[in-house]
């Protein structure tokens, strides 16, 4: 028996979520008193996982899996899970992981819970806490499969170091022609993506127009943050749709979310509520966002944001 995790990588390097899933997997394997096995697909430095307590690394390296294919990745993970007799499989909540997880659950006939926010509430029966109603509630879900599959919500467990000396084995998989073929990938380069960002700076209708977005972008650059916006802002074409966050847009689970000129409508908050710390800058003290935020500045964005940028630059240039 074992806990199996998929440590995701991009450009042959592990993503941070890979380490979060490993950290979670380690704790879960300790609770269950079994080994923690990680699957690494096309990565250059599997040893990086030794910092997070992995006992055993199954390394798959093949050009056939160079492009992500939900079908073939699910097939590869299912093959490893069966080979290693894994009873619990843990994936992250990246777009790719959420894409392949249901296919994997079919391949393994596993019970599957997505959006899991913590270690199991109980091991026997196997009960997990997951978020639902778009972050407005949680439910306790009992997984009763012979194999249980968990999708760990982003940034819900954190990265915890624990040194190990993993045994590394390579594994080969049969790759078939996927029914779905990738033709091309268009990635925005040189920008932090909302999914990967520790900090997200978001602008709403209060910024008055796209010509003022340099405020959001400058603040984001200063903080190494991703930029985001409210739905009307993307609907009006001030910003690309890919920046729209909220219930009907992208979910955000960053460490810090700064909302500027965003009122804090329920649908906006639902999508960003999983963020750890929320800051609001709004000139209306009655804006609902103040009820959801940890820190707030009542003030005019056009005055506050430039000053904040200057002060942050000074702070960054200083002792830190």
């Amino acid at each position, binding site marked *: 028996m074992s806990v199996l995790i998929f440590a995701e990588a991009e450009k042959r390097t592990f993503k941070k979520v890979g380490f979060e899933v490993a950290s979670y997997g380690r704790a879960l394997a300790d609770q269950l008193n079994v080994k923690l096995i990680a699957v690494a697909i096309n990565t250059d430095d599997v040893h990086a996982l030794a910092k997070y307590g992995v006992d055993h690394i199954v390394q798959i390296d093949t050009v056939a899996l160079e492009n992500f294919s939900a079908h073939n990745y699910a097939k590869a993970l299912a093959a490893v899970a069966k080979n290693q007799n894994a009873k619990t499989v843990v994936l992250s909540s990246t*777009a*790719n992981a959420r*894409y392949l*997880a*249901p*296919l994997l*659950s*079919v391949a393994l006939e*596993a*019970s*599957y819970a*997505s959006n899991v926010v913590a270690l199991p509430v109980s091991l026997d029966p196997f009960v997990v*806490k997951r978020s*639902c*109603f778009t972050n*407005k*509630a*949680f*439910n*306790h*879900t*009992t*997984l*009763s499969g012979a194999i249980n599959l968990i999708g760990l919500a982003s940034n819900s467990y954190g990265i915890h170091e624990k040194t190990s000396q993993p045994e590394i084995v390579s594994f080969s998989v049969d790759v078939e022609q996927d*029914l*779905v*073929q*990738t*033709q*091309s*990938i*268009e990635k925005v380069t040189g920008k932090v*993506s*909302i*999914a990967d960002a*520790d*900090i997200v700076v978001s602008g709403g209708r209060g910024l008055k127009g796209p010509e003022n977005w340099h405020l959001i972008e400058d603040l984001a650059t200063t903080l190494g943050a991703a930029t985001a916006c409210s739905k009307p802002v993307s*609907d009006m074409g001030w910003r690309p*749709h*890919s920046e729209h966050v909220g*219930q*009907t847009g992208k979910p955000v689970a960053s460490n*810090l979310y700064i909302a500027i000129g965003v009122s804090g409508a329920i*649908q906006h908050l639902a999508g960003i509520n999983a963020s750890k710390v929320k800051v*609001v800058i709004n000139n209306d003290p009655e804006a609902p966002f*103040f*009820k*959801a935020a*940890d*820190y*707030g*500045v*009542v*003030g005019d964005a056009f005055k*506050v944001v430039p*000053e904040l940028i200057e*002060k*942050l630059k000074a*702070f960054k240039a200083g002792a*830190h």
Partner: protein
Amino acid sequence: MNVLVCISNVPDTTSKINFVENDTQFDTNGVQFIINPNDEFGLTRAIWLQQQQQAEVTVLTVGDASCEAILRKCLAIGAQKAIRIDALPTDGFAVAQEIAAHCKNESYDLIITGRESIDYNGGMVGGILAGLLGMGYVTNCIGLTISGDTASLSREIDGGKENLSAALPLVIGAQKGLVEEDDLIIPNMRGIMQARQKPLTVLPSQNLTPKTTISKFEKPQPKGAVKLIAEDQLDQLIELLHSEAKVI
């Protein structure tokens, strides 16, 4: 071309989320139900296929009789047929199995689900359905054109998009971008009248054993009050974010 759109019946986005029966049931009191927003984007795309490429559009929901109002709304929007599978949708895997059992007797070229439901947030029914039917699957779908028996698609990925092609039959997970908000069809009087005449078939449940069960619900801890920082004290904000919140 036969298109099936899977519809989840969900509480309106502004609903107060409360639970009853010792926190084991969602409190539907005073809650208005809507077509899951992601499914509505998918339905609109399906109606365009009907208008431009003579597709026949069927909508399907797994749920009790209370879901029929939503199915009638889909008919008023333009779907030709509606199906309700008479089972309580408590488990995503079981919902997918119920839908798969129906699809095996039909010949759908395209099955549209939503990227995720806004109540369960499983993000699973479409993928499981594709897996069970052995069909291709593309989720987070923000672009779809069909010519002959192939589909060209785009999918939103973290930090960009991916363009794909696939042979029909195919399952997709729809989201905003597949059509835009402004494209959503608001039923008119004629549509509503016609919907009354359109077939709504009720199919029996497969009575499956669920793979998961929800034992209880919980609401997030109430939030502490916001700490207000005066607009001329921004150094204090930076200090709090650094030393107290430890996020910068």
